[in-house]
């Protein structure tokens, strides 16, 4: 029986907390949450009303009510308990969480954050009486592009006006101002000082200025943790070495060290040679030791540097939520070591895009996987991949489930496996995941039941969908230009699912389009183009060369979100793509040409296909063409009641911050394990 904090939403001064309840009976008395302040031993009980979806409950709290006067106390750390009674049984459950929320600035000198203690119990931490002359940055990195700072651009949801970054050369007392105009995510700015501006001898101090409540504020930049994960050193154009430092009280400074003289370089080279020699010796020793460990079937030691492995669809792509998380990590914490686990055919792509990689099923891959501390994947690793104890494995999964999964599949028809083995492997694999990303309550419930998953759910939304939520019309135009799609034409995307019964032999599929491209072109070809997005297993079986001016086969395009963004209408059948596409509030058309066969003989569905979908169902080719025309005439679905109900159920987490929330979770683990 467990209660897990899975989500926090801000509504002005009120915070809405979502708890996932596991094995808690529905009919209980006096259901409430008790907050206990750990320092003053003060408590506050908030009654809970249970919703229809009874595995989750919402608790709304007003933050000011959790601050009180007590011996000049400035730090408030509230533990959380779920309490309820069943007859004469009195339950008190400490609320669990590994969830770490964003820092929410309440005033110039106070903020709060939802955190977790060393035992993964939830904490609501409020910090008051902070130094109002300090501005805590989210990240800071000194790279060849310059000095990049990210931080909050709101206080208690109120935007900060005229925000700018000030670079002060302490040696010359000159100050340069940089306008803060780029929003990395909603509520988070990003600003870069060009590397050329750091040429002169420093050190450089950093400030931020803004207007807030008719007050002009100037604050010194600080980082409230170590520089772990940040890129902190860079050769400057002047030959000096730029170096980020946290000086007193966490204040940030850029030091500019004099260039190294030739003599020192020669001396350094000598000592480097010694170190290399020693390193080779150590390596030899290490290999011998490794061999011994292998002989004794003992595990590996983790890398000294924090290393994160990313994998998408078993190494076949650099894509999906792992990519969104990777990009956020690269931007905020480039000081860590990131490695993609890929199939060999992706090596040229990785090289072209400067992505560190290891090729799957090689000795280096096994070694890297075993020595890394974090794995982030959207699909299962093979069962024979051993997960060391020091690894934290974050499973993003790859879609809101429509078709039954794991234990919910009663009859598994996949070559090379049986139903029993498939179930067993699913549960074994799922419980190796330390955290599982979930996009909504519906998915959370299915993940628990279908995977037998007992660990942390991160209900933060899918990181891959951040792009859909945050993209602007300018971004969409740029994407169309990149994909060479005419800007004056509407775009229809066809993205069907793959069928298990298309197996002809293990790993090989066949596929034919279930509608006539000729008819489609005749009806819509003048002002519309068609994007085909087929499953990776069948994309090679298509030949659309005859329609090259009208059909864009983008099945192998790495980022499907880009294709959603440029499309005005989606056609699908049973693929879970519509859960993602719905974030755009554009029309969706369902064309389940083999519905009876699919539902009756294969996996079945969690949703009522006839009633719960956010669009019209076309039962034959004629209906399909009619509905495409209707759909293209109604580009915005937000006024459609059925669509909106679907949106509320599946797309309600639409803050576009899923990737940074997963990054925060990993950072919390990294800091906890240091």
């Amino acid at each position: 029986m467990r209660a897990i904090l899975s989500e926090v939403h801000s509504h002005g001064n009120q915070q809405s907390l979502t708890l996932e309840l596991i094995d808690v009976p529905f009919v209980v008395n006096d259901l409430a949450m008790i907050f206990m302040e750990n320092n003053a031993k003060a408590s506050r009980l908030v009654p809970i009303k249970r919703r229809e979806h009874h595995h989750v409950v919402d608790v709304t709290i007003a933050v000011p009510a959790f601050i009180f006067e007590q011996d000049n106390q400035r730090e408030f750390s509230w533990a959380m308990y779920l309490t309820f009674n069943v007859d004469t049984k009195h339950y008190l459950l400490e609320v669990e969480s590994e969830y770490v929320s964003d820092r929410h600035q309440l005033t110039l000198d106070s903020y709060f954050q939802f955190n977790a203690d060393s035992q993964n119990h939830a904490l609501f931490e409020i910090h008051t009486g902070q130094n109002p002359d300090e501005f805590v940055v989210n990240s800071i990195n000194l790279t060849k592009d310059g000095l990049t700072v990210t931080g909050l651009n709101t206080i208690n949801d109120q935007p900060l006006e005229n925000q700018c970054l000030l670079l002060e050369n302490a040696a010359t007392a000159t100050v340069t101002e940089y306008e803060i105009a780029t929003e990395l995510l909603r509520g988070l700015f990003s600003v870069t000082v060009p590397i050329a501006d750091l040429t002169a001898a420093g050190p450089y101090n950093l400030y931020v200025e803004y207007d807030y409540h008719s007050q002009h504020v100037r604050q010194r930049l600080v980082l409230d943790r170590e520089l772990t994960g940040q890129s902190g050193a860079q050769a400057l154009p002047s030959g000096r070495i730029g170096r980020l430092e946290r000086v007193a009280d966490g204040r940030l400074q850029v030091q500019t060290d004099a260039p190294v003289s030739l003599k020192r370089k020669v001396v350094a080279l000598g000592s480097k040679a010694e170190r290399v020699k020693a390193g080779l010796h150590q390596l030899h020793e290490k290999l011998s030791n490794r061999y011994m460990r292998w002989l004794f079937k003992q595990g590996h030691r983790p890398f000294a540097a924090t290393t994160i492995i990313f994998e998408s669809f078993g190494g076949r792509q650099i894509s999906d939520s792992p990519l969104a998380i990777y990009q956020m990590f690269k931007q905020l914490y480039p000081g860590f070591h990131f490695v993609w686990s890929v199939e060999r055919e992706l090596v040229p792509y990785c090289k072209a895009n400067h992505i560190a990689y290891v090729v799957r099923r090689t000795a280096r891959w096994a070694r890297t996987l075993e020595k890394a501390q974090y794995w982030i994947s959207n699909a299962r690793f093979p069962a024979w991949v051993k997960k060391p104890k020091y690894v934290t494995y974050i499973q993003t999964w790859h879609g809101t489930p429509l078709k039954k999964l794991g234990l919910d599949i009663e009859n598994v028809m996949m070559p090379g496996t049986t139903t029993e083995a498939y179930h067993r492997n699913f549960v074994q694999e799922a419980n190796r995941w330390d955290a599982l990303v979930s996009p909504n309550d519906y998915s959370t419930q299915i993940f628990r039941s279908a995977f037998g998953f007992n660990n942390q759910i991160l209900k933060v939304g899918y990181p891959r969908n951040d792009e859909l939520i945050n993209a602007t019309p300018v971004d969409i135009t740029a994407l169309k230009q990149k994909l060479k799609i005419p800007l004056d034409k509407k775009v229809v995307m066809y993205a069907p699912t793959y069928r298990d019964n298309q197996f002809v032999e293990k790993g090989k599929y066949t596929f034919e389009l279930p509608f006539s491209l000729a008819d489609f072109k005749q009806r819509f070809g003048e002002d519309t183009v068609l994007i085909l997005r087929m499953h990776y297993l069948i994309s090679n079986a298509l030949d659309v060369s005859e329609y090259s001016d009208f059909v864009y086969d983008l099945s192998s395009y790495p980022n499907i979100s880009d294709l959603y963004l440029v499309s005005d209408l989606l056609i699908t059948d049973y693929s879970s793509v519509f859960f993602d596409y719905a974030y755009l509030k554009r029309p969706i058309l369902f064309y389940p040409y083999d519905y009876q066969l699919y539902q009756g003989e294969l996996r079945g569905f969690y949703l009522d296909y006839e009633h719960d979908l956010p669009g019209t169902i076309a039962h034959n080719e004629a209906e399909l063409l009619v509905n495409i025309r209707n759909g293209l005439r109604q580009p915005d679905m937000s006024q459609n009641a059925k669509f909106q109900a679907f949106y509320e159920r599946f797309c309600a987490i639409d803050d576009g911050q899923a990737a940074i929330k997963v990054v925060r979770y990993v950072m919390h683990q990294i800091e906890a394990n240091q």
Partner: protein
Amino acid sequence: MKPVIFLVTALTDVKQDGFSVKLRALLEQQVPVQILFADLNFLERATFDQLLATLAVTNPALVTVTDLFDIFANDQGSPLSERTRMRVDHTNLTVRRHTSATETVVRYLYDDQLLEEQHFTADQQLSYQNFYQDNLLTQVVFWGKQQRPVTISNFQAEALKETLLLNAQGELVYRFMREEQPVQKIFNGKDAATLQVADPATPQSEALPSKKSREPAGTLTVRNEQATIFKVMDYVDATDFNGIYDFYRYALKRLGAADARLYVSVSQNVEMSAVLPNQLIFNY
């Protein structure tokens, strides 16, 4: 700082370290403290006063103690029936008297049968009367400083069965009926244990547990206890109290605790929180 009220429901509350630590801290800051002595066993009041004198010795003038009689003394109640209060005709009874430094005890016996025992304070004020049948305690009438009956407690097989709270006119205002009930307290960690049970036996580790060594998620501890509960019957206006904690809530309200900073025993936090939703409660 807001006015401070401590709720005390039993002597064990006062004996906790937290009580003295919090009380002393407030008194050192010159904060006046009001204590609601809501112990249904009024006989413990004298011991409570002695303990408090040692705790509040630095600044006793800042502490005021209010009991349930003080709060409800002027509420209109229901007259007691003739049979409610036991009386013993002292004529022809053997009288035995014993005087110590702190009290005088007078016993009334019929042959070898003890019928009544009166306890007087050192200044010869009647403190309480015990009545016996077959030498077993059946009723205690507490007089207190008011020199009038304040509570009547009835016993069965020498176990407390009910306590009646009277007003200044000797009318019944509240009846507290005691029951024993088996309960299960179920919790999932040492912090929850501290709140949930008075003497958590959960082993406590000194070292911080590592991520890999923590208890499996969902592990619950079950404690079977025999709980004492009090049902409350209202003779003032027939309020339907949901147990004794709901009555404490009402008593605190009558005392004006809505605008005060309330301190309760940490062992009663869960129960008191349940009857005071959304209220900030401090624990001792």
